[in-house]
């Protein structure tokens, strides 16, 4: 990297507004994290799309692979009790 002057890739996550979590919006190149944060501001929030930014070097992200998908995500598929719509409640009960 340093020999040729190529800048590493960073993934960018933006919190759209207070109360929301950071969402992946894309990537960019920067020499280091400090500049990546600034570049991300200019690139991904120039229409006031965010209140907070994370940048993460793309190389340090560990991702699940599609082949592992069945063992990773399918077990959750039968745990319907995790979803609020699983529970029947009388219609006139508020704030549930």
């Amino acid at each position, binding site marked *: 990297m340093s020999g040729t*002057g190529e800048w590493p890739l960073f993934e960018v996550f933006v919190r759209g507004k207070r109360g929301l979590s950071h969402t992946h919006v894309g990537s960019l190149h920067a020499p280091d994290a400090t500049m990546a944060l600034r570049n991300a501001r200019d690139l991904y929030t120039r229409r006031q799309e965010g209140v907070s930014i994370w940048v993460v070097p793309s190389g340090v992200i560990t991702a699940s692979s599609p082949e592992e998908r069945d063992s990773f995500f399918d077990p959750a598929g039968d745990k319907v009790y995790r979803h609020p719509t699983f529970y029947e409640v009388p219609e006139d009960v508020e704030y549930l």
Partner: protein
Amino acid sequence: MDGSQVGPLNAAETEDYAQVVEEHFGGLIDADQRIEPRDAMPAAYRDTLVRQMAQHAHSEIIGMQPEGNWITRAPSLRRKAILMAKVQDEAGHGLYLYSAAETLGVDRSELLAKLHAGKQKYSSIFNYPTLTWADVGAIGWLVDGAAIMNQVPLCRCSYGPYARAMVRICKEESFHQRQGFEILWTLARGTEAQREMAQDAVDRWWWPSLMMFGPPDTGENVNGAATQSHTKQSMAWGIKRFANDDLRQKFVDMTVPQAEKLGLTLPDPDLRWSEERGHWDFGEIDWEEFWRVLGGDGPCNAQRLAHRRQAHEEGAWVREAAAAYAAKHAARGQGAA
């Protein structure tokens, strides 16, 4: 695969890759699901996407030049601000698209190197010069209009990162076309000289804009046949959603009434409404000019590429310095820890 072991670096190295592609990829495409970066996919699908996203990104970056030309000469401060924001948006769109391409394992620097070496193309429309201020209007109205027509279907492209980049781009692009129309609207209602300037720009940009949809899908010549099979494959993969000629017709149908509103003439004597087809008929496109400009014989091909190369080369020492600084400080950080 055993999660604790390191798998093949490239999924294509596995023996049953073809079968995985067949079942996994084919199944997703059939179900109109999005393909994501780590999915198994046919090599040709990947190559087509990388090439298309790269060309698209290059077009945004090279496309900054014809309009960037007019930033320092914009005729009002309001126009200057709008134009700066627009050219800056194009840089941003280029970056979104390079970012999408990089999810397939290519590096932006590789793609730029190919652009600089003339090995990857960009939209041929940017090989035409912007001779007057009205050209900025014509580019916004016609060129961006045609680009949007091409791009909106890409928001539903089968490759997730490309589709997401396009959603972002299309959202931002809508202001580009409107500002172009507004420029021409103002000129057409201005002084005689301004009106002439507007008409002259439309005369020069109309036909190249129609060429932006690519050669006909009819396959009536060698190039056409290649286009036809390419279009077919891209449509089967969900990369392309409409044929070139369909999009071109849609663009003409949309633009003719707008030109009438502007009070400007589209330079085509054969333009007339067809009751039978329910579309506007238009004249023969000079495909010889298209292939000629694409092949390098356009007024600005050499200039655009030289400008881009120069910026890249003049920036080399800056990029190297920043990388060296980062390396030094990372090393110091580790030393301290």
